[in-house]
């Protein structure tokens, strides 16, 4: 059958459809939900690897839903950035799935609140699977309105996941998160209205060709950007992020911080630099860069001031998201490395490092029953792997070589110095220094073993709690060494040479 051939574009629907089916089945059955979710996450990773191979052989591909060509139907497409985001989601998603299994089994093994934890696990799997489907759909989508639907899918499942712990603080944070997310997608939809009024098409590829620099387009772009920025939590709009991320269950925090905010950012970036690059002016880019710079500094300072580990990690997310926006004003640098690679690198490194860090924080929380930073001493003796994972993730967040974070920040530095915009370089360096303060502040507590400290016996399920975090931390560390590999995919995905090659095939 042609569908199963290596060259078939129909493989593209698998990253969306497989988690969807898994989500439905997880909701339908009350047993073996982990097996279903794990199977979906594994297959998802395999299919994404296959798609990467496809990209390297055939170049960017398109898949028309229902066989209807662009103005009428919805198109999915793969290119370099989309595939790297998919890979990021698949790898982080698999690790989070394993970690969540360990997390819930550990909590259920505690007989006091077993019923409640069982219920949390029961609803975690379908929500997480549908969130995964939404994320994959967003990265693959090539249609403005389809992006809106996937954003809603992501927003609702993320808010439900954030409320899963049932604590009053997390309910409140989740409510605010839901409203912000709804407001964001509503503004985005408003933007679509203007886009549709002035162009009459919804396909991104067609919009790219049609887009004239009209008033309607500019209004649409402003509205859509504001909506997406609200969901990405750029500095003045970040107010909802720390409580929502810090009060959720540990696997949920990892999902929200590592993946969900990247989704809306990815879309924003595509709109600005791929679809409507002619509409964007340098002052706008500088404005975004400024907001990003403030976010870097403000988030880091707030992270330093926190007394709880998870809140600190959440503020660190605000800070790290700022780096993504500092790349904006450097986009027009001639002859340098394309801005895509900078942004994708920072996003990849942050996704791995931050999810590892949240997992480590969650494990520490489970072990101690609290996450007050000043009382963390002695954890190293009982959770050596977790502390190691935290340290490596911290190295990537600070941007020390050879981590992925280092490469991302190094690219930012070279780009800003190369275009003689040295003030951005200053912000990047200051941000890294502040990051090292908040990382080391916790690390110094973790490594201290107080006198008279006796080792507790470790519990049976700890392996699944510790190893996924370490694996992700190591990936973020070695991303810097293997930097040429993602760049290779990016370059392959964005040149048109490969498309010519595909055109020649029978």
């Amino acid at each position, binding site marked *: 059958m042609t569908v199963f051939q290596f060259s078939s574009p129909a493989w593209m629907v698998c990253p969306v459809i497989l988690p969807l089916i898994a989500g439905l089945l997880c909701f339908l059955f009350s047993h073996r939900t982990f097996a279903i979710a794990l199977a979906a996450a594994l297959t998802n990773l395999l299919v994404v690897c296959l798609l990467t191979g496809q990209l390297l052989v055939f170049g960017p591909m398109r898949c028309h839903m229902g066989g209807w060509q662009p103005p009428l139907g919805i198109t999915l497409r793969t290119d370099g950035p989309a595939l790297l985001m998919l890979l990021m989601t698949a790898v982080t998603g698999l690790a989070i799935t394993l970690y969540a299994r360990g997390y819930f089994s550990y909590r259920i093994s505690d007989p006091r609140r077993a019923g409640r934890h069982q219920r949390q696990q029961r609803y975690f799997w379908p929500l997480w699977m549908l969130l995964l489907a939404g994320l994959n759909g967003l990265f693959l989508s090539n249609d403005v*309105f389809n992006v*809106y*639907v996937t954003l*809603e899918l992501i*927003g*609702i499942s993320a*808010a*439900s996941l954030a*409320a899963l712990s*049932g*604590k*009053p*603080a997390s*309910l*409140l944070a*989740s*409510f*605010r998160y*839901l*409203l912000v997310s*709804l*407001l964001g*997608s*509503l503004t985005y*939809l*408003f933007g*679509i*209205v203007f886009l*549709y*009024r002035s162009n009459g098409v*919804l396909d991104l590829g067609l919009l790219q060709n049609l887009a004239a620099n009209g008033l309607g387009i500019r209004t649409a772009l402003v509205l859509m950007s504001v909506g997406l920025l609200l969901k990405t939590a750029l500095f003045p709009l970040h107010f909802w992020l720390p*409580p929502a991320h*810090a*009060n959720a269950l540990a696997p949920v925090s990892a999902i929200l911080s590592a993946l969900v905010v990247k989704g809306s950012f990815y879309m924003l970036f595509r709109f600005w630099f791929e679809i409507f690059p002619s509409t964007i002016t340098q002052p706008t880019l500088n404005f975004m860069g400024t907001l990003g710079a403030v976010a870097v500094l403000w988030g880091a300072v707030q992270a330093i001031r*926190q*007394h*709880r580990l998870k*809140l600190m990690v959440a503020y660190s997310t605000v800070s790290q998201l700022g780096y993504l926006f500092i790349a904006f004003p450097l986009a027009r640098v001639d002859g340098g490395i394309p801005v895509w690679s900078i942004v994708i690198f920072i996003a990849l490194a942050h996704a791995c490092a931050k999810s590892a860090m949240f997992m480590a924080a969650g494990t520490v929380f489970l072990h101690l029953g609290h996450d007050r930073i000043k009382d963390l001493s002695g954890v190293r003796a009982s959770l050596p792997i977790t502390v190691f994972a935290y340290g490596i993730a911290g190295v990537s967040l600070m941007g020390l070589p050879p981590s992925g974070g280092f490469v991302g920040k190094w690219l930012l530095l070279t780009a800003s110095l190369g275009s003689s915009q040295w003030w951005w370089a200053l912000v990047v360096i200051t941000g890294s220094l502040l990051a090292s303060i908040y990382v080391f502040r916790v690390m110094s507590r973790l490594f201290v073993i107080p006198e008279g400290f006796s080792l507790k016996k470790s519990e049976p399920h700890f392996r699944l709690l510790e190893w996924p975090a370490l694996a992700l931390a190591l990936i973020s560390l070695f991303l810097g060494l293997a930097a040429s590999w993602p760049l290779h995919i990016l370059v392959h995905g964005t040149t048109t040479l490969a498309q010519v090659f595909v055109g020649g095939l029978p």
Partner: protein
Amino acid sequence: MITTLIYSLTGLILFGMGFFTLIIHSHPLRKILAVNVMSTGVFLILVATAYIPLGEGEIDPVPHAMVLTGIVVSVSVTALALILACRIQETSNSSLPGRKQQGEVPEESIR
């Protein structure tokens, strides 16, 4: 043409009213209703664009499909938000001190 404009402007005013209410009120129910008014405004503008001035009696089906999708999404989010708000009320009545531990300022908690 003038009909479309009237509908669009009405939708716009609804959007603005909803947005204003969303920001200034702190009660959860008012916030949910405000977002609903806002989405109604957007849907109204979207439906107004479906009217094609050239062809008599013809409508553009694509905005209609989009509005239908939007309404379904809005229903889902409203239901979830309402139940979340009820849940917040229940838990905050039974265990009010829980909020302070999380480093949140209670007055601004919803805003």
